[in-house]
């Protein structure tokens, strides 16, 4: 594991420098550079197949780019495995929910807490003494902080597989939060949700980003332009593996290049307005 230094608000938390990623002859990312500062919501947009998810997989350690550096808190993390990156404070949700359908909501979230457990297999198999105390502390954290934040009290004991899709997405976010991450990668958290669910999810993302208790930096991949432009501090535009621009929502909205490459027509911003 890499030793990490303390990062203050506004410092660069995650840096991608000249990332290249190929699958055979397919060039998924060619020379992408991105800086994410602590405390911001940084969105990545781009048409389907632009390489957004590939980029997230590189950040998160599922893929290892052939060329380029990924630095987290100033340290190069290219070869750190996903679970070690999780320990460093990176959490993510997936475009298609990847929850454990047979487990309850509570168990799914508890699973995200796994890396914070200190007791080993042996002591963990007997619910006694320190292990018991630890378990109670974690449970308190989950109940007080996550279930309350995401307003899922009424389903805490329901198997996730039985819940509607919008709720499953919420549970997935809860599991990512259980890690107490510093950087949260959200891969299309709003895809497939209805209007009400979108509004709620957007509120949760803002809460997690702004609320003093959390202040999590978010890397958001999303197609819903209305939400992206409302929530983001900065927007990064990707097209066929190339970076088109990186700027504030206003800059991106008024950039002719972006409009041409991705948005097509001007009035497409307002998809849900």
């Amino acid at each position, binding site marked *: 594991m890499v030793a990490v230094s303390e990062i203050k608000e506004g410092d660069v938390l995650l840096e991608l420098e000249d990332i290249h990623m190929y699958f055979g002859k397919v060039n998924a990312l060619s020379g992408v550079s991105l800086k994410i500062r602590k405390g911001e919501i940084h969105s990545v947009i781009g048409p389907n197949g632009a390489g957004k998810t590939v980029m997230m997989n590189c950040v998160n350690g599922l893929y290892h780019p052939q060329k380029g550096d990924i630095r987290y808190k100033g340290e190069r993390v290219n070869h750190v495995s996903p679970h070690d990156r999780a320990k460093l404070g990176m959490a993510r949700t997936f475009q298609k929910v990847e929850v454990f359908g047979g487990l309850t909501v509570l168990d799914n979230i508890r699973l995200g807490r796994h890396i914070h457990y200190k007791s080993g297999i042996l002591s963990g198999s007997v619910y006694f003494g320190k292990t018991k105390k630890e378990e109670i502390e974690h449970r308190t954290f989950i109940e007080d902080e996550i279930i309350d934040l995401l307003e899922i009290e*009424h389903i805490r004991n329901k198997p996730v597989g039985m819940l509607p899709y919008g709720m499953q997405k919420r549970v997935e976010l809860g599991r990512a939060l259980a890690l107490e991450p510093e950087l949260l990668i959200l891969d299309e958290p709003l895809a497939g949700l209805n209007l009400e669910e979108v509004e709620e999810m957007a509120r949760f993302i803002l809460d997690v980003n702004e609320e003093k208790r959390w202040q999590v930096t978010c890397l958001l991949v999303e197609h819903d332009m209305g939400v992206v432009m409302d929530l983001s501090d900065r927007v990064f535009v990707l097209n066929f593996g190339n970076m088109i621009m990186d700027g504030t929502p206003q800059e991106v909205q008024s950039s002719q290049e972006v409009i041409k490459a991705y948005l097509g027509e001007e009035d497409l911003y307002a998809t849900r307005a």
Partner: protein
Amino acid sequence: MEITKELTIPKLFFQQAQAFGDDRIAMREKEFGIWCPITWKQYFEEVKYITLGLVSLGLEEGDKVAMIGDNRPEGLWAEMAALCARGVGVWLFQESLIDEVRYIIDHSDTKFLFGEGQEEVDKALSIFHECPKLKKIIWDDPKGMRNYDEDFLISLKEVQQLGRELDLKQPQLFEDLIAKGHGEEVALLFYTSGTTSLPKGALLSHNNMLTMGRSLMTVDPCLATDDYVSYLPFAWIGEQMMSISCGLQIGYTINFPEGTETAQENIREIGPHVMFAPPRMYEQMTRSVQVKYLDATWLKRKFYEFASAVGYRVADLKFSKTPVPWYWSLLSGLAHITVHKKLKDHLGLSRVRNAYTGGAAMGPDHFRFFHAMGVNLKQIYGQTEVAGISVVHRSGEIKFDTVGKAIPGTEIQITSEGEIITKSPSVFLGYFKNPEATAKALIDGWLHSDDRGFIDDDGHLVVFDRTKDVFTLRDGKPFSPQYLETRLKFSPYIKDAWVIGNERDYITAVMCIDYAVVGKWADEKKINYTSYHELSQQSAIYDLVEAQIRQANKDLPEAARIAKFTNLYKELDADDDELTRTRKLRRAFVEKRYEDIVKALYSDNDIVHIDTTIKYEDGRESKIRTDMTIRKIART
């Protein structure tokens, strides 16, 4: 306990808190998955510092303090604190729209408003500048409140801090304030839901509230060790009656569920001993049992059929006061073990000694349903103007077409026009800023209810309907549309029904299907639909509804049967003013709003064209263009 003219709610609160102290649990709230107890001593201290905080913010005698939010301890503390500080409590329904909030806050001259969290604060903020009397808005849930910095916003914690500071300076102040109160002073300003007009504010004194609670408790005593679940809006007088009037006198534990979605589950966890809910709650329970029955396996269904057949039989014997033969008792025991015990547990009714329903009419079918299960369900009749209730069924003397006998201290009479009038120490002081309405309602100390009814041979009161709602059928007989509507609602597929037919040739009905239940039924029948309005207009759904109406039409005289009906393209909703906040149908309003539908029902058309705009809660609008079928029910 003696209720003197001197006794006030705060005085009683003080006595009870001293008596119970730290040994007894006053309330519980489920938070973060755990039931957290609050002892009487804690309750007392929370209230004390809120009271003093309000005083230091400038609350004076007679000032109005409004509360809005879900049921939670903080809501009750705020109300109690307002009373202790010699203010007057005003409750608003949690889901009230901005206009309703504005009207009540403005009309009542509210000075302080307790909101729960961001949602309520947002409502309050949007009306703050239109209500000049409003001074401070107090909130207690910090969620989402990080960006609010208006100087008239203050958190409950800060109010209590102010209270603590004042307490250091004037340690006797709290007790002095309580001692100053008098039982005949106004305690609550309660806005009635009003099916016809703007809400009216009923002024209720401490004495009104306390005598009403005592009278009910002499009929059906509760124990201090009982549990009660508070989940219905505090703005409903029935909830005030249970949580304040009765709760304070008996000292039972009041339990607050985690949230509105978890209420049913939390009730089951607590298993309350006493319960008071409007019919819609019992209707909901009935529906969920009926739906689960339809879903169950063959064997389970057979067991249920056996148990309910036995249950109905035994309940009918009891209704007619015939002794139950030993073999029926035996079968009933078997039904209890196999089905009813579990069923009651699932509904949270396993420990209920007395369950009350009131506030609107409940159909005899629902009534029998609960008695068949062995739940001692009783009708209550009352109104906000008598601080809750005046008439109730006595155990063992249940007649499902009556509402029972007057509670002690209450006199009921029927005027020559058939109007029900009441006299009791709980009759209210009058309407706030509305002397004409007061003069109409209060004549020589008799409260005129505007309800029609009569007293039957057993001395039970029978409430027919609101005077203006009683129909005259074509054969000249009076008829209550509510009776037919409640019968229709016994079907799990029907959420609401609106029966029309006053002085007309025949009776018609506008039906609202239950989206969840009918939707599931349609899924099983492989009927496609995308929305409520599409589903409601399918001919298969018309067949289904027709079957339900035929069932309700059975054993009714020819003139009282429904001859035509249509399925409404939307559910009736309190937000659209079609129902009151307690879900009573506002007949005059819907008749005007759906004029075209009514006209079509009394013409030869078999289709009515709808072209209307629906307004959503967040202000969005959408157009609806559809054709509603009108179906005739052929005579059989």
